[in-house]
């Protein structure tokens, strides 16, 4: 099946405005006759729900947390990009577009990315209007910083809590609409399926987590704003509750899942301390501006360090391998996230890892402290150093930090066209949950931008076009599809609750995570991926036989909640492996061992893989079918990234 991304014709800079004009409008008096379902209340969901309600639609919003304000967008630290050019340093919409598409290793659509850059400026206006307290200069105007190796200062920030402040802004807009009666908010409610009637999405099935009630909600359109699936790796920087269930259920109802193997690994996270570890904590990559990454030169030295026979501060300078500076003399410690991450893992795989577990490398500030003084280092990184000390009980002013890469973001997700519509009419997907505008790799400070762009400035236009087309007649909830989908959900809950085996759901999840990280993480090869596929299939079969799921449906039941989510991860994991197997090139954050330059760097294959891989579900345990959306580049010239 060929996929039509519906990118408007015409010059790049005019595509969005032309398109907006061509979109049908809904008569203001008719808007209240439409119901719109929004699942998820992160940046994308909250901004979409609020904006649509402001327009006059009746919105029903859902989140599994106890409050819409808890969505994991809240944890984003760094900032949000916008092509405001307030600093007069040569930024422009085109430059932001160019940087983003190049950063994504040319695996995103030109049209989408340009639109993202275009509306980025409106986002900042909107947030400031809501009272988001961005950092300011003494003159009272907004401050910017350069972020993630960008040549221009275009990142707006609110200390290290930009995500929190942006989300609270969107949450406040949502609250205003809840108060106005235009949004009905359902908290502690998890979406478990999409109702598709005659090929169109017309509702969802939810489970109330407090009392187990399975309910049907109808709507003229369903928007999935349910975030990424990084927790398939068990350990990630995601929140504990982050899951793929909504998107995966939609996928099983026919929505294509695009580029599932594209995950972003962040290099500067605090390493794992043991099997008890439940999540990983990210530290801003700004640390690499002054910190030097190194590992012991030999395996023997590393072993001594691990056993405590040698203290890190006693290790001689010539016994230290500053591997990033050695391999990438021009970029050094500031190589992009993917390169830094991959090289760190290589050190550990060679046996040169440090810390009690041996799964970490050093990030050393000794040189910076000697050069700038401890006070200057504290002023710049004090809060990060405190956080590190809090978690590890090690003083980074006195000894090097230990860092290790961690899964941070997933670029893959449900396939959507230019209108953010999946291939199921009426089913939309926004934010991290869609396969997004980031291509194969996401630049720093662009995730917040995309979530808010989708919710505030894209969906309010594109959804109207669809709604105007289908007309305001009420949804017929008598349609057997509603009852049938509800029954399917209930049957699955029953099946899960009947599991009384001998292994906890967390144990399965942890095992899946190990497989994914080992074989489908930063570096992959065909043999490993094939092995992983077999392992996942076996694990999944075992799960449905031997998992323990306790309790009843009619109560808060974390056992059941987790089981449903992990069951979906066990299916998604296999698709990620399939996607990684198919993509025989190295691109973005992914190093395919078979595809490298003579110097051992990632080698992209534009001739064969400049496409979006959109996978089509064909039934349980059936191979999924690959649909390709070829990426056309009319404005940018594809170049190989090099950081030597």
């Amino acid at each position, binding site marked *: 099946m060929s996929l039509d991304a519906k990118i408007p014709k015409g010059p790049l800079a005019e595509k969005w405005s032309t398109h907006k004009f061509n979109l049908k409008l809904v008569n203001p008096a008719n808007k209240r006759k439409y119901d719109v379902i929004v699942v998820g209340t992160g940046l994308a969901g909250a*901004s979409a729900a609020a904006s649509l309600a*402001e327009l006059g639609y009746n919105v029903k919003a859902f989140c599994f*947390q*106890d*409050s819409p304000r*808890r969505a*994991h967008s*809240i*944890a984003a630290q760094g900032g949000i990009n916008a092509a*405001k050019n*307030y600093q007069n340093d040569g930024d422009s919409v085109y430059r932001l577009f160019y940087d983003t598409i190049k950063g994504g290793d040319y695996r995103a659509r030109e049209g989408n990315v340009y639109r993202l850059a275009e509306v980025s400026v*409106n986002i*900042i*206006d*909107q947030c*400031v*209007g*809501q*009272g988001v*307290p*961005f*950092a*300011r200069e003494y*003159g*009272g*105007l*907004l401050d910017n910083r350069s972020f993630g190796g960008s040549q221009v200062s275009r990142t707006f920030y609110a200390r290290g*809590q930009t995500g*929190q*402040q942006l989300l*609270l802004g969107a949450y406040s*807009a949502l*609250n*205003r609409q809840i*108060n106005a009666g235009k949004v009905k*908010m359902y908290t502690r409610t998890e979406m478990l399926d999409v109702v598709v009637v005659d090929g169109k999405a017309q509702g969802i099935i939810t489970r109330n987590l407090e009392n187990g009630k399975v309910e049907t909600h109808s709507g003229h359109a369903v928007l999935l704003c349910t975030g990424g699936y990084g927790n398939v790796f068990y350990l990630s920087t995601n*929140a*504990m*509750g982050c899951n793929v269930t909504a998107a995966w259920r939609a996928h099983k109802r026919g929505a294509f899942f695009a580029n599932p193997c594209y995950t972003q690994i962040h290099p500067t996270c605090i390493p794992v*301390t*043991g099997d*008890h*570890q*439940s*999540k990983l*904590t990210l530290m801003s990559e700004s640390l690499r501006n002054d910190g030097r990454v190194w590992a012991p030169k030999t395996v023997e030295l590393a072993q001594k360090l691990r056993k405590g026979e040698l203290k890190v501060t006693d290790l001689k300078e010539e016994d230290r391998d500053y591997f990033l500076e050695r391999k990438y003399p021009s970029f050094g410690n500031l190589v992009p996230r993917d390169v830094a991450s991959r090289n760190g893992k290589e050190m550990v795989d060679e046996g040169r890892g440090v810390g*009690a*577990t041996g799964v970490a490398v050093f990030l050393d500030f000794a040189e910076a402290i000697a050069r700038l003084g401890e006070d200057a280092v504290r002023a710049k990184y004090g809060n990060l150093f405190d956080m590190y000390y*809090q*978690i590890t009980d090690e003083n980074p002013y006195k000894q090097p930090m230990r860092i290790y890469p961690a899964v941070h973001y997933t670029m893959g997700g449900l396939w959507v066209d230019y209108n953010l519509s999946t291939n199921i009419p009426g089913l939309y997907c926004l934010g991290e949950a869609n396969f997004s505008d980031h291509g194969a790799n996401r630049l720093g400070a662009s995730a917040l931008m995309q979530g808010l762009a989708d919710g505030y*400035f894209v969906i*309010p236009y594109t959804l109207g076009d669809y709604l105007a087309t289908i007309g305001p007649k009420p949804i017929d909830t008598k349609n057997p599809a509603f009852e049938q989908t509800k029954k399917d959900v209930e049957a699955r809950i029953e099946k899960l609750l009947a599991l009384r085996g001998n292994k*906890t759901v*967390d144990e399965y999840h942890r095992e899946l995570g190990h497989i994914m990280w080992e074989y489908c993480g930063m570096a992959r090869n065909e043999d490993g991926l094939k092995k992983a596929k077999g392992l996942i299939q076996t694990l999944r079969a075992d799960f449905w036989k031997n998992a*323990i799921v*306790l*309790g009843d449906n009619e*109560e*808060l039941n*974390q056992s059941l909640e987790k089981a449903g989510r992990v069951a979906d991860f066990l299916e998604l994991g296999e698709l990620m492996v399939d996607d990684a197997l198919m993509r025989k090139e190295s691109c973005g954050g992914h190093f395919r061992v078979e595809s490298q330059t003579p110097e051992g760097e990632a080698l992209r294959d534009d001739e064969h893989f400049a496409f979006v891989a959109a996978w089509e579900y064909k039934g349980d345990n059936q191979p999924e079918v690959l649909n390709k959306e070829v990426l056309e580049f009319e404005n940018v010239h594809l170049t190989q990234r090099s950081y030597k």
Partner: protein
Amino acid sequence: MSGTNNMNLTLKVWRQKNAQTAGKFVTYKAEGISPDMSFLEMLDVVNESLVHKGEDPIYFDHDCREGICGMCSLYINGHPHGPKRAITTCQLHMRTFHDGQTITIEPWRAAPFPVIKDLAVDRSAFDRIQQAGGYVSVNTGGVPDANEIAIPKVIADEAFNSATCIGCGACVAACKNASAMLFVSAKVSQLGMLPQGQPERYRRVQSMVAQMDEEGFGNCTNTGACEAECPKEISLTNISRMNNDYFSAKLFRQEELHEQSHGEG
């Protein structure tokens, strides 16, 4: 992972099936606990062993586990979010405790925060207070350029300090009166200090306070326990700012400032 420093602890945990049934303390042994674990990871370990024994795991709210989402709670040995300052429970590490220690874990206690199960309470009262007026009424798109309004840095920074509230409810849990004023005043202050919040400043404070009262929270006696236990160190000064705005609105403002229909009828 060397197990040499591992600890054995006794946990006294509040177990309550739901809001309708009475709860009680149940004692559990937590064995082989690594000092590197976070408090919630320690509970994960206990829960894993409970599940293996076929017993209902302890329910507690949590999500981001990095101290920002505000979902985790727990009143640990007499302190909301445990004995350390300026952190949430998920940031509390077991090295804070010692081998053989008994740890008592209770849910937040306040009438407007009914227990849902075990250690999880319903904090939707906070959402309702925010819905009553914790926003600037601007529609998407209808805003001026971001740099059109210059805001003195000190004001922006002070508003930011108020805005860092994560809505966890530790202030209510810590207050001897179960007062929510620190939480409410943080939002009132943030928007009341910024120019964007001025047009609705006096209306906002009235509707949010009215909703707060309706939820049944206690009163502020300026003891400062909330400020001391707040994981984000929100200042008590916010409460005074709120009071000032409230009395201005109620007693001195000339214009009619209707409360919004949502809260009080």
